[in-house]
């Protein structure tokens, strides 16, 4: 055999050995595992037992037998095998099985003896005690579990040992402030417990929450402040939590910035206006505590959060700081343009876009163009809006052109473009709004109706009074089943929101036409709400009952039943 061939042979033999080493070397063990895989638990248990009869210290077989007996609910049968294994070849795995077996059979004294032996073999290791505590917790024996933690702390001379387990025990006891202290101890050992602690303390009853926050806020550790802030936000006051966190953090501490960023990330996950405002607050604080690009990034993030929360003043205030530091990047430009468009300052928005467009990524540039087009449309300059969309062949651009066409009164082309844009252009909110607009236009026979376009544009501009008047005029000229009912409904809702209940009722009754069965139940629900607001309960009840009985398949029936339940006092008020 040549030398290369011999090397090849040796290599193949070595590889083959390596592969077989990954399978259970013992055929009986392999058979037991296969039986387990096939869910033949009784036969698998017998096979694991057979392996243990030959090699009592085989931890794999012992744990397999434990699994099978657990499924078969014959847990106590493991004890002789576990004792034999512990005598022959004690290991962490074998001791773990033995402790669990004793606890499951209610023999806590024997469990304690096994833990003592295990702890003597592994001095300074918390694992023996942890196994005992966890097994006792599984058996709902919290008194023993607590006692085991105390013993562990004395034995290990570590008052924070097994804090994670003790935190769960204290929470289960309803001792929430003590649970919070234990969580802080656990987080000090492993910061990764921060989210687990938030999740575990979040269900605390309302009465216990102030005490939990006091415990945490009295702790000078940054992790405690962060946990307090996360909990405060989860319990409904994200802005207050952010302010408290900022007030409690030490100055000039890099770890404080980490805590602020962690809280901001938590707020992003939480969502909602309050969380967005809280995110803005802490990002501003990050910017104050950092310099250069990180500070600019934080300011842009703060502005974005404020803008998404609807606080355009705060967003503009923060963006002014970004602009003044001279290091504003593409993100800052985009946020700034969005804020200016939202504020209706179109000339400033155009100028900001034009001066920065060249350094923006192509996709972001196109998005901003559409945003500007939308801004011009809202401002009533439909020609400029259309011009801004020239060359835009995207689905989002098509959806926007469709809306602009409708504002111009070209219902047929506009509706066609909205249909082609489909349900995926823009945000989910945009898609829903498009669908509602299409549903409104669908029954209208006329291809062009400039008065309706103008009314919808007024609505988009936020002039609900003018929009409602115009919609009512248009609706009056259309048959109920050719768009009149739907437009009366929209006008009625707008007027109701403005507090003019008499006019709203008149318009909603006009919408409640048997000729338009898709609109009538919605109008009746709206009328019932209007009557309830005016303390006309019996009329509202009659209206709701009519709605349910005459339109049992309507999508608004569950909502109508809910309101009817409230009227009757069958459920707590919303």
């Amino acid at each position, binding site marked *: 055999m040549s030398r290369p061939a011999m090397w090849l042979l040796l290599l193949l033999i070595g590889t083959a050995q390596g592969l077989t080493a990954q399978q259970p070397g013992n055929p009986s063990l392999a058979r037991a595992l296969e039986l387990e895989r096939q869910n033949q638990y009784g036969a698998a248990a017998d096979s694991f037992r057979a392996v243990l009869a030959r090699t009592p210290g085989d931890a794999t077989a012992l744990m397999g037998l434990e699994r099978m007996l657990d499924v078969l609910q014959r847990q106590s049968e493991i004890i002789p095998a576990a004792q034999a294994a512990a005598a022959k070849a004690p290991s962490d795995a074998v001791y773990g099985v033995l402790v669990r077996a004793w606890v499951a059979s209610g023999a806590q004294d024997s469990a304690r003896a096994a833990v003592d032996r295990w702890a003597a073999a592994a001095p300074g290791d918390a694992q023996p005690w942890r196994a005992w505590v966890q097994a006792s917790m599984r058996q709902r024996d919290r008194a023993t579990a607590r006692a085991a933690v105390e013993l562990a702390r004395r034995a290990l001379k570590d008052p924070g040992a097994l804090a994670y387990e003790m935190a769960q025990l204290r929470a289960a006891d309803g001792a929430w402030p003590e649970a919070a202290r234990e969580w802080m101890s656990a987080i000090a050992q492993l910061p990764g417990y921060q989210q687990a602690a938030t999740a575990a303390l979040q269900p605390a009853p309302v009465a216990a929450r102030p005490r939990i926050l006091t415990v945490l806020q009295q702790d000078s550790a940054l992790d405690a402040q962060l946990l307090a802030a996360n909990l405060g936000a989860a319990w409904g006051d994200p802005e207050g939590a952010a302010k408290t966190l900022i007030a409690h953090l030490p100055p000039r501490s890099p770890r404080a910035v980490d805590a602020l960023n962690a809280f901001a990330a938590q707020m992003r996950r939480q969502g909602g206006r309050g969380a967005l405002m809280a995110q803005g607050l802490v990002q501003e604080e990050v910017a104050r505590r950092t310099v250069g690009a990180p500070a600019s990034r934080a300011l842009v993030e703060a502005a974005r959060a404020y803008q998404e929360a609807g606080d355009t003043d705060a967003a503009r205030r923060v963006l002014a700081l970004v602009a003044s530091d001279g290091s504003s990047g593409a993100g800052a430009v985009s946020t700034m343009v969005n804020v200016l468009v939202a504020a209706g300052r179109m000339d400033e928005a155009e100028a900001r876009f034009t001066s920065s467009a060249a350094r923006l990524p192509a996709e972001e540039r196109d998005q901003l163009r559409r945003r500007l087009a939308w801004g011009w449309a809202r401002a009533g300059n439909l020609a400029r809006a259309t011009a801004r969309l020239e060359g835009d062949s995207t689905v989002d651009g098509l959806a926007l052109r469709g809306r602009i066409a409708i504002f111009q009164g070209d219902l047929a082309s506009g509706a066609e473009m909205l249909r082609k844009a489909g349900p995926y252009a823009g945000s989910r909110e945009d898609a829903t709004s498009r669908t509602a607009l299409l549903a409104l236009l669908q029954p209208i026979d006329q291809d062009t109706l400039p008065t309706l376009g103008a009314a919808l544009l007024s609505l988009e501009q936020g002039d609900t009074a003018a929009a409602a008047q115009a919609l009512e005029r248009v609706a009056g000229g259309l048959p109920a089943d050719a768009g009149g009912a739907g437009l009366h409904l929209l006008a009625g809702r707008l007027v109701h929101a403005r507090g003019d209940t008499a006019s709203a009722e008149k318009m909603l009754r006009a919408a409640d036409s048997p000729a338009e069965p898709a609109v009538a139940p919605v109008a009746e629900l709206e009328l019932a709400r209007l009557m309830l607001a005016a303390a006309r309960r019996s*009329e509202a009840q009659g209206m709701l009952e009519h709605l349910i009985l005459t339109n049992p398949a309507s999508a608004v029936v569950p909502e109508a039943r809910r309101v009817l339940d409230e009227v009757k006092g*069958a*459920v707590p008020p919303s």
Partner: protein
Amino acid sequence: MKRRQFVHLTAAGVAASMWPLRRFPSWQRAAYLLAPMDDAQADHLKSYGVAFRALQRGERLEWLLNYRGGSFLLPGSEATARDAALAGVTTEPLDDSGATAIKAQIAGANMDAVPLEKVPRVAVYAPPNAPPWDDAVTMALNYAGIKFDKLWDGELQAGRLSDFDWLHLHHEDFTGQYSKFVLNYAGSPWLADMINRNQAMAKSLGYANVPADKRAMAQRIAAFVERGGFLFAMCTATETLDLALASDGVDIAASYADGTPMDPEASQKMHWDRALAFENARLELSPTIAVFSDIDGHQVNSPDKRQPLGSFSLFNFSAKIDPVPSMLVQNHRQVIPDFYGLTTSFNRRTLKSAVTVLADEQGAPWVKYIHGERGQGTWTFYGGHDPEDPQHQIGDAPTDLSVHPHSPGYRLILNNVLFPAAKKKELKT
């Protein structure tokens, strides 16, 4: 015609509406309407209300025990069809042959058809200021649309219990110790209000203190059962009612309640023969622990003894031989998640031998739901506070049953409300 139909279909008060009158749909008339109580039912809890109101209209109906989760065979009247449609209760129209086929199936299986013919007069024992959303039975009755009266000590003293067939007790503490919240919740306005009201009531009725008042009320309630009343109790009312009955002449109240400390030998001096369900319980001596005795298996307010929640299983009974327990356990679920209350469960050790266990937690030393007789009447005890708020705490938001229309735990409550409607001969076992 249109106007007449409208007036017929809407309540009289609605006629005041200015809303233009319009025609309601007319339902296809069927001989019967089956309200299935298995998973086909859209609103299990409101089904009981539909059945109850049919009884109120003088209609006859049948409770089909063990048939599709304990379904109701309702008359196919327009009023019932309308009521079910408004409530969102699923009904299936049946002709005579369909009903006969069901009866044939019932005859050959562990099922029975129990006629319901009497409208139970329902009362809830609660102070006048009790919030409507802090009592599971009140919530269930309100949600199902079953009317009830509220009674408290003044009404009981005046003998008004005899006006009712069915009485519910919830978290009243009949030991007169304000649920032992006095030390832990000192300073809370709601607690101060509770103490003031109870003390004023005891004084106005001529009792020396609140524990004496509550013991007298417990005795009146026991006498109501003796005379043939139906008693349903939940939460603390179960345990404390029996403690009050058994403690005649024994001081089991802390000094903040009656001015003298509890008798340390009280456990040995109790007269368990006077209690409805329990015996040989050991009383909790500490006035600071909101636990009354070892009757409760879960001891929610005892840091050293509190047990975690599991789930409880309903027992199966022979519908034809044991219609009463069968009615009480009708459900579309056999295993139900447990829920805490000041009294969550009942230790088996403390149950009298004549008690019928309706549900227990397998392998646990406690049971959840029990039933028994006293004189001409019956009592049923159900541990826990709110089946859909398992960790209930003072101050929690009220449970909205419209998001739990299938609640199996609440169904057990409503089984109890309807059970006195059964034809009297069916109630004899």
